[in-house]
């Protein structure tokens, strides 16, 4: 069998970092990364970016050596992606925070409100309802992270965990402070009950919708694989929104938070909903664009996040 020789150079300095001889032609980039890791133990495979061109795109772990446009002596360029952390770890941390923090405000743990309110509970039933909804939402997210989601990438840069946790934990504290405040004003007397009821229905509907989409996306991808397919509506009516939208998980998420905003009538919640919407729109547009690029037959009726609008 014809063996390959692989040399790995630093993308910036072009220094020869590693030379591997007798590499199997059917070796994958992932296997080459493991071999590179042996000679440079500080660069574990997750933080290696291997490319054909110093300024080019990263090669995928699944790419096979003999299928790449290289001669029998292959030259690759290496870039350090920096310290990495697994997506699962980031998600678990960033979602556990809001769950715990909100409950601290709900139970009025000392040093938040005036001492006479310590460990008291609100007299408004909507405050209890809001706590249940908020807690349910984050518990759902934690369980989905553990049992539903199939991630394309294993890791992300370490600094993301600080950025993400600041966002989630910060906003959770800000919202929870006002909703559970002794001077909280619930939706007004006359339409109040109807408003809260409607908001709850919207919230629950969108929670189920969001979960349905996550399950549908999971089922697109066999266990352990990283394949990408076009999602289509299934027998579950909550997935029929795929006819009109590329990223209905974000659409339902927006709906949930709009429901929560109307339920609590709290401006910080409205802010959080708006900021989340902006971020999700950016993500949805990116995802929509990559679907269009990857699939010639992508359904033309679909919008990124809001049917016909956005």
């Amino acid at each position, binding site marked *: 069998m014809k063996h390959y020789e692989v040399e790995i150079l630093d993308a910036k300095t072009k220094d020869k970092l590693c030379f591997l001889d007798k590499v199997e032609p059917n070796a994958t980039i992932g296997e080459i990364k493991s071999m590179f890791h042996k000679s440079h133990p500080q660069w574990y495979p997750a933080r290696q970016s291997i490319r054909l061109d110093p300024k080019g795109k990263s090669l995928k772990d699944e790419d096979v050596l003999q299928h790449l446009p290289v001669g029998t002596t292959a030259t690759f360029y290496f870039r350090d992606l920096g310290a990495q952390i697994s997506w699962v770890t980031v998600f678990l941390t960033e979602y556990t925070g809001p769950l715990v923090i909100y409950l601290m405000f709900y139970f009025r743990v000392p040093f938040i409100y005036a001492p006479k309110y310590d460990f008291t509970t609100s007299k408004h039933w909507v405050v209890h309802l809001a706590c249940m909804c908020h807690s349910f939402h984050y518990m759902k997210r934690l369980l989905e992270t553990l049992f539903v989601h199939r991630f394309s990438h294993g890791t992300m840069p370490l600094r993301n965990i600080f950025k993400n946790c600041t966002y989630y934990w910060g906003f959770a504290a800000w919202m929870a402070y*006002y909703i559970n405040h002794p001077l909280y*004003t619930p939706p007004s007397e006359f339409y109040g009950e109807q408003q809260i009821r409607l908001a709850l229905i919207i919230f629950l509907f969108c929670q189920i919708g969001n979960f349905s989409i996550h399950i549908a996306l999971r089922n697109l991808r066999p266990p352990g694989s990283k394949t990408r397919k076009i999602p289509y509506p299934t027998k579950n009516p909550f997935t029929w929104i795929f006819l009109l939208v590329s990223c209905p998980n974000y659409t339902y998420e927006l709906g949930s938070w709009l429901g929560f905003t109307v339920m*609590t*009538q*709290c401006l*910080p919640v409205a802010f959080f909903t708006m900021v989340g919407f902006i971020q999700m729109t950016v993500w949805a547009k990116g995802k929509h664009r990559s679907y269009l690029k990857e699939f010639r037959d992508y359904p033309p009726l679909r919008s990124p996040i809001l049917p016909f609008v956005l």
Partner: protein
Amino acid sequence: MASSEEDGTVEEKENNNKKRSKSALATAWLTFYNIAMTAGWLVLAIAMMRFYIQKGTHKGLYRSIARTLKFFQTFALVEVGHCAIGIVRTSVIVTGVQVCSRIFMVWFITNSIRQIQNEESVILFLVVWTVTEITRYSYYTFNLLHHLPYFIKWARYNLFIVLYPLGVIGELLTIYAALPFVRRSGMYSMRLPNKYNVSFDYYYCLIVVMLSYIPRKEHFQ
């Protein structure tokens, strides 16, 4: 055949003319803008000097130039637009942050908290701003006219070493002086209970603003 070819080239020429005239228009506007702003800040500088020479005190100086200051400093918002449409190659965010911090100082501190208008720190940052802006706008003007005197270039890249810390001190001392008046009046603040279930305390907001002066790279413009 021949006529369509002619049409093609005529169209091409028109497009090229459009492109050239667009950037000529942009250059003309920017030149006018920078000359106007240089003039505006010069007027401010002269008015300030005249007041001090005539009255011998800085008390009442702010009031005398307040309207001119508000006009020219607010008009600088246009610079964010310049970056957004691309006729100036600077980040929208950097320009935006710098202009907003000036707008904040002028409208939300000095203009609205009358009791601090005669503080010495106000004069300090006004002088710093005036020198900085005259240098900056004249630098841009000369650059656009492709004739940059060495003195202006030197001033732009060297004066800030002194002006930046002085400006920070002037602004910080002014905000600090304003704190007790903000606390007492409860201005721009919203307390609970209210139907939006939100509260805002301008006093603590100002303290956060003062802390945010610590790393401030957008002053280097």
